[in-house]
């Protein structure tokens, strides 16, 4: 990967969920672009307030599940029906009811593993990955809002700072280069 140019962010810290949400609403109404908000727990509908797209992970899980179903049915039919057909308990070679448990288990297995893998990849998570932390307290009890100054050329830094201070940040906003 090539070197990325450093970007300057203004970091606002909130100590209360409701102040955070009303600040997001006001700031976005004024035309400010919020880079992201980092929270210690999943704040309900925060992605909607920030205007992010809804996640499509559930659809991915469904597709992975269907793949598992297909795989299981194909595997069992091939193995017992074609590769080495045997009569077991007087049943058909391809005894569909008997294939249900394994088909179900493989569906669940593929859906879960596939979805979790998609989750990790789409978030850029993985063993040894470095986290980009604007403020470490966002994993404890603070709500951290990052505003990319480069993408908000409409406003000056001082203006944004004032907007944050007027909208319930609990401390003086800091600048951070990433």
């Amino acid at each position, binding site marked *: 990967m090539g070197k990325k140019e450093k970007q300057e962010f203004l970091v606002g810290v909130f100590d209360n969920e409701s*102040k955070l949400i009303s600040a997001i609403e006001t700031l976005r109404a004024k035309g400010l672009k919020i880079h992201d908000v980092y929270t210690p727990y999943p704040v309900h509908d925060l992605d909607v307030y920030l205007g992010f797209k809804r996640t499509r992970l559930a659809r991915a899980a469904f597709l992975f599940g269907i793949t598992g179903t297909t795989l299981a049915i194909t595997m069992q039919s091939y193995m017992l029906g074609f590769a080495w057909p045997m009569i077991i308990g007087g049943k058909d070679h391809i005894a569909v009811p008997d294939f249900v448990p394994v088909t179900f288990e493989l569906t669940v297995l593929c859906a879960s593993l596939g979805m979790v893998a998609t*989750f990790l990849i789409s978030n850029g998570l993985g063993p040894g990955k470095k986290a980009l932390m604007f403020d470490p307290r966002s994993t404890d009890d603070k709500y951290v809002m990052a505003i990319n100054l480069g993408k908000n050329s409409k406003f000056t830094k001082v203006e944004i700072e004032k907007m944050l201070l007027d909208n319930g940040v609990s401390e003086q906003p800091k600048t951070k280069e990433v």
Partner: protein
Amino acid sequence: MQMTSPVREPLVLRQIHDKNRKTTMHDVTNDICRQVEAAPNMRWMMALGISLIVLAYGSYTLYRTWFFGIGEWGLNKTVGWAWDITNFVWWVGIGHAGTLISAVLLLFRQKWRASINRSAEAMTIFAVLCAGSFILMHMGRPWLAHWALPLPNTYGSLWVNFNSPLVWDVFAISTYLTVSAVFWYVGLIPDLATIRERATNPISKFVYGILSFGWDGSTKTWARYEMVALVLAGLSTPLVLSVHTIVSFDFATSVIPGWHTTIFPPYFVAGAIFSGFAMVLTLMLITRYVFKLEPYITLTHIESMNKIILVTGSIVGIAYITEFFIAWYSGVPYEQYAFINRMFGPYWWAYWAMMSCNVISPQFFWFKGMRKNIYATFILSIVVNIGMWFERFVIIVTSLHRDYLPSSWVMFWPTYVDVGDYLFSFGFFFTCFFLFAKFLPVINMAEVKTILASSDEDASVHYADEDEKHSKESAH
């Protein structure tokens, strides 16, 4: 902060040392991270030491099992399945509570699960590993374990028999183990990031840095995380029901009197949840005491779990009675004999131990005083697990020991190797649990913070704006 509601008791209590102060999010982080960050204390070292000694003894008998074969056990020509499969079913059953708490209660929006799901899920994983170890033990030649999987081979290819419940079980247990482990780990990532950010010592910063996968808690990450949790819960709910159903198929699809009954799947699932919750309570009460988690694991939690024990215990009781009725009603003398033999045959003591532990003892939980009594709960949780072990022993051994030919009638008595192998699983389970309790956060901090936030006074004003307006209007 305290959850206040006219109909419900708070889910998170005030701080122990300062009753006037509500528990804040920072308190949650401190209280849960404390035992991860502190040096191991004496009590923990002793507990781990005892587990390791038990594990060492179990490893010796396990070595005998594998080196000399399963002839070291008390099995004979008639009773070919005894302690190993009893222990297997018992451990799988115990595992069920973790998934029930993490998945089914999530779907039912039972917020109280937040402070117990982490350790219950850990317990699930360790219990399923213990269960799996008995399968490997009974194989006699565990190095051929991969023969249970449909792998291409040089015998033809010769495939596994997908008509066999034992093969279904391989798929069910391994899927269950994998999905539970993944579900548990995904939930751990945000909390590991919290520990990473707090770590002062470079080794823990490095280790938790790797384990936390670079979690930053951004909006999108959390939104996706919630979706993953929801979908995994939706997948795990039928999965957990399927696992014990398939375990019961191991017996129900056979032709042994006492085994081939259609009631087995629901009866096994209820029994699994019953014993699982009992084990969760046993471990939780100890953890709560040792790590001073009283504000998080409250009497309300204990009471809720006792209610589940009462319900599932009663389902199990009804299942026992139904089995008897059907044996009589079927008019099949073999079936009738199998059940009379359970009650009054040479294993009568196992049967009555099962009945008193599983059917009578949970009835104490009809009384609120008993449900909220920690000592009674602790004792009964152990009694229930003894009873559930006997249930599996009764089903398996009493059905087998009377063969079709009276000349083959025998008794099964365990040898010290049987006992040692069972101890092995205990040693393994508790070693894993103690390591987990020391090095990983035993309570899901992020989820507990969610509960706190919904009771945040400002937030409730924000969210309940409409409600307030409405009530003011109606007051006028």
